[in-house]
């Protein structure tokens, strides 16, 4: 099947690549664009390790065809921060031990990012319900929830200080 030109915005940069329509977005990101933050955990739409932010929604990139993503605006964990300049969520995951092996973490963080944009003052229950599409085999979730609540508090404090 012929490859087609695919244009997307990924982490603020316009990118263009050749891909077959049937390729999954996760494969385009990892193999064609070298963006290895989003992981493949199950490839069956269940684990959320492949989560990216696409046009303002958290989506499982293993369940999106390349062709559907033409023209989309995508943010992966790489777009949030870098090692010298961590995003608050990354900082809080580190501080509160929100990870062990780290395999689920990029999906957790990009999902939590959208959750906090939609609900800047979540309760513990809101966080648990809003993160229900992301599985973690290591942590038992307790510290992930703690990290996200701490990030929300930090972000709100920073907002207040700025006012």
């Amino acid at each position, binding site marked *: *099947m012929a490859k*087609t030109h695919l244009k997307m915005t990924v982490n603020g940069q316009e990118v263009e690549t050749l891909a*077959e*329509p*049937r390729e*999954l977005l996760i494969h385009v990101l990892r193999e064609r664009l070298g963006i290895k933050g989003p992981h493949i955990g199950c*490839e*069956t*739409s*269940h684990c*959320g390790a492949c*989560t990216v932010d696409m046009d303002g*929604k*958290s*989506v*499982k990139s*293993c*369940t*999106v*065809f390349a*062709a*559907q993503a*033409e023209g989309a605006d995508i943010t992966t964990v790489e777009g949030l921060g870098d090692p010298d300049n961590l995003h608050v969520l990354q900082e809080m995951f580190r501080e509160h031990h929100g990870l062990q092996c780290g395999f689920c973490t990029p999906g957790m963080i990009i*999902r939590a990012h959208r*959750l906090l944009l939609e609900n800047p003052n979540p309760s513990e229950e809101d966080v648990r*319900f*809003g*993160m*229900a*599409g992301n599985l973690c085999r290591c942590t038992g979730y307790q510290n992930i929830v703690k990290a996200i609540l701490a990030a929300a508090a930090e972000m709100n404090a920073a907002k207040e200080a700025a006012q």
Partner: protein
Amino acid sequence: MIPGAFEYHRPESVDAAVKLLAELGEDSRVIAGGHSLIPMMKLRMADMSHLIDLQKIGDLKGIRVDGGTVTIGAMTTQHELIENAALQDAAPIMREAALQIADPQVRYVGTIGGNVANGDPGNDMPGLMQCLDATFTLVGPDGERQVAARDFYEAAYFTARTDEEILTAISFTAPKGGYAYEKQKRKIGDYATAAAAVLLSKDGDRCSAASIAMTNLSDTPVYSADAGAALTGSPLDDQAIKTAVAAALNDIEPAEDNRGPVAFKIHVAGVILRRAIERAWSRA
């Protein structure tokens, strides 16, 4: 998990999409959110030469509440159903059910049109649509027609929609009285072991109208007119609930699968339906 190859189309109007479906024939399919279709294609249980993506068709989006009638465009996502304040006022059962579908990521992209057109008995919206007595609008080469949700489902993955038709909208009269959508599932992101949609009206201390439908307990959703009739006119006491549950269990035909044997499913169906009736009554 690589699906078969296909050609991709992204029409910008319903007319253009209908034309493409007719031209490309039976090897073509529309794709909405893709969250039922893509998993099937990855498993190679579905194989298409052409996919017609509906994402760019503005006419298929949006929720309208107009003089007691609710109309929802097929491409409206489950997330949008949950967030819409006018819909919450007019038909809170929609939000209650949508929140029990899958997980946040799936709800951002899964659409109501895909959920009701799919024909999978595990989908939650078809039973709810039967409970609400909703109408589906289908558009094909010969124009538009309406089909009642209660007449739409024929067997698993077989519906009254023909291959050349697109489901453009669903509509229903905003329900009055008490409501509940109860679902038993093994974990978040799982389809129902059993689920029940119930609407009840109250007049004095009697039940004046009742509508009951169930999910994933037959190869189609099950609207149980007998269960509703058992409650109507009753004081909604234990005896009436027992009669209604027995009537509903008589209408279902669950199959054994990895969610359990038939006897277990019948048991769960009874428990879930009783809970739904009691909750709907407490809100009536």
